[in-house]
């Protein structure tokens, strides 16, 4: 409504002073074109190159050596057991995103009850989120240290010497280190988002619930959860997308292994880490490109849903 009014006002102004309005439009085009030009050069161009590269073989970074190779890259990727392994590892580590979401929901609901010191708690809960993934990895690698790590020390205090776990050598334990580190690191974001959403819930709904004598749990499942559902969905989507792109921590935990193994039996090999190893250690850019595109298609599908919901969420 207001927008329409503005446009009308502008329209009359256009008629009065055509030169000024057209100058304004020209400036506007310049303003909006700078980011788009940047995106064309540093986004579209590279995407086109990497798309074409999938169908070729190439030496180094020399684009002139690109040669059609009869889907050889696709064959190699889809016959590569390590690629499927990496997808499985990535999905398993993405579990951390669901746990983080649950933690964020629980803690934001707790904070919304405004317990004593809730402002201080809010400040503390966000601290892990601002720590870099490198620092977080170093921190947790030391916590999980087999001999003098605090986690094995506590396990031994509880369950005796047999309760120690060799985190870096056991293929079952290894991915859990990354999951724990992510769950420590990530919920701060969700807590902030959920807190904003919980503040938006109409208080009269709770009052109506009180009148009807509805219990706390029922109020939570029937009023709170539906009201914050868009945020849950948004966080779930961004969480899954972030999980599918897990790289930093996987790389840190794997260290500089030139053999290309990431953890015992490669159980720490996420897809993006595998892509990185493929082009950085083995120099096989076209094959890495194919894997990137497979990942891209998966994530893009999820992003489409996410974007539609985000628009709804931001514009209300």
């Amino acid at each position: 409504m207001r927008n329409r009014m503005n446009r009308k006002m502008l329209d009359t102004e256009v008629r009065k002073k055509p030169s000024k309005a057209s100058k304004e439009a020209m400036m506007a085009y310049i303003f909006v074109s700078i980011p788009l030009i940047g995106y064309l050069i540093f986004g579209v161009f590279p995407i086109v190159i990497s798309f074409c590269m999938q169908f070729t073989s190439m030496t180094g970074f020399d684009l002139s050596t690109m040669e059609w190779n009869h889907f050889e890259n696709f064959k190699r990727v889809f016959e590569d057991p390590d690629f499927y392994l990496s997808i499985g590892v990535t999905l398993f580590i993405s579990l951390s995103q669901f746990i983080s979401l649950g933690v964020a929901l629980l803690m934001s609901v707790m904070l919304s009850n405004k317990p004593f010191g809730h402002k201080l708690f809010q400040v503390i809960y966000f601290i892990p989120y601002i720590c870099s993934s490198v620092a977080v990895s170093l921190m947790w690698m030391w916590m999980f240290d087999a001999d003098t790590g605090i986690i094995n020390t506590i396990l031994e205090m509880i369950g005796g010497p047999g309760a120690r776990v060799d985190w870096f050598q056991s293929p079952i334990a290894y991915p859990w280190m990354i999951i724990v580190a992510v769950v420590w690191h990530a919920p701060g974001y969700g807590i902030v988002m959920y807190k904003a959403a919980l503040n938006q819930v109409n208080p009269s709904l709770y009052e109506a619930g009180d009148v009807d004598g509805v219990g706390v749990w029922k109020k939570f499942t029937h009023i709170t959860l539906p009201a914050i559902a868009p945020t849950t969905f948004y966080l779930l989507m961004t969480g899954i997308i972030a999980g599918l792109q897990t790289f930093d921590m996987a790389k840190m935990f794997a260290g500089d292994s030139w053999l290309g193994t990431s953890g015992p039996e490669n159980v720490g090999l996420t897809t993006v880490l595998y892509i990185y190893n493929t082009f950085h250690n083995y120099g096989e850019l076209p094959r890495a490109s194919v894997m990137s595109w497979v990942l891209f298609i998966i994530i893009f599908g999820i992003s489409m849903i996410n974007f539609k919901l985000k628009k709804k969420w931001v514009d209300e």
Partner: protein
Amino acid sequence: MKHTKLMTRVMKREEKAERTRRQLNNWVSKLIVFAICLIYAILLLVPFYVIFVTSLTPLVEYGSSTTFVWFPETVTFEAYGDILFEDPMILTTGMSSIVTGFFNTLWVAIFPCIIGLFVSGLAAFAYAKLDFKGKEKIFMLEVTTMMIPMATMTIPSYVFYNAIGWGQGFLPLIIPGMFGGATTIFFLRSYMASIPTETVEAAKIDGLGPLGIYLKIMIPLCIPAYIAQFIFGFVGSYNNYTGPLLYLYSNPRWYTLQLALSNMQNVFGNPNQQCAAALIAIIPLLVVYIIFQRFFIEGIAVGGGKE
């Protein structure tokens, strides 16, 4: 008459009992909520305690211990000394690798953060307050770019920068960011939309052009949004690991803070040194966070993530 009086008295007593019961319930639930909040806070802070204590523990104590050292018998700051003053990088640049990394990080972060923000603001201003043909469509196109997941852009960008000769160096980390970003535009646009159009119209009547309005009116009025976005971008640059790993790995002098930190184990692999290095890397941002926490949280709650 007497009967009813008795009834009311009984009812009153029951009511009272009910009220105290409810108060007790309320009190107990408050205590439980507080306890959960406290436990979670402790769980989050334990790793900081662990790396802090370890950074102060002499290596000798770990040599003789088979468990975690909860508190050292002798406190030593030698790990900090090693990292800040004994680093071999001092011989070449005069600064230890972590300090060099800190300055490299500032250098990499500052241009995309300031110029990129200014440029994003220009576009946001045009979308929010200027009138031009095809605005909605161009905005949709702009927003569509937000949907491209970052990690899948790694390979295409890496190939592209290598093909144009930017393969190793600061350029891929600085130049693209100076063209602004869709998420920032999206955030600033919604903030600018809340500025009354009358203010802009009045400035137009005063003879200000679009650039003048942007510089003299929009930026001062939207300072909180700019600060929130600046901090958000700065934290992203400060914590960036993948970018420097791809484009700066070949020269240790170029290492940013995160890259220097991740490479620390080659020189200083002892647990106390590792923990001290991690703390040194975290503390600057932690201080900024404590001072500007409002903006950190606003930048996220309104702008959404830049994942």
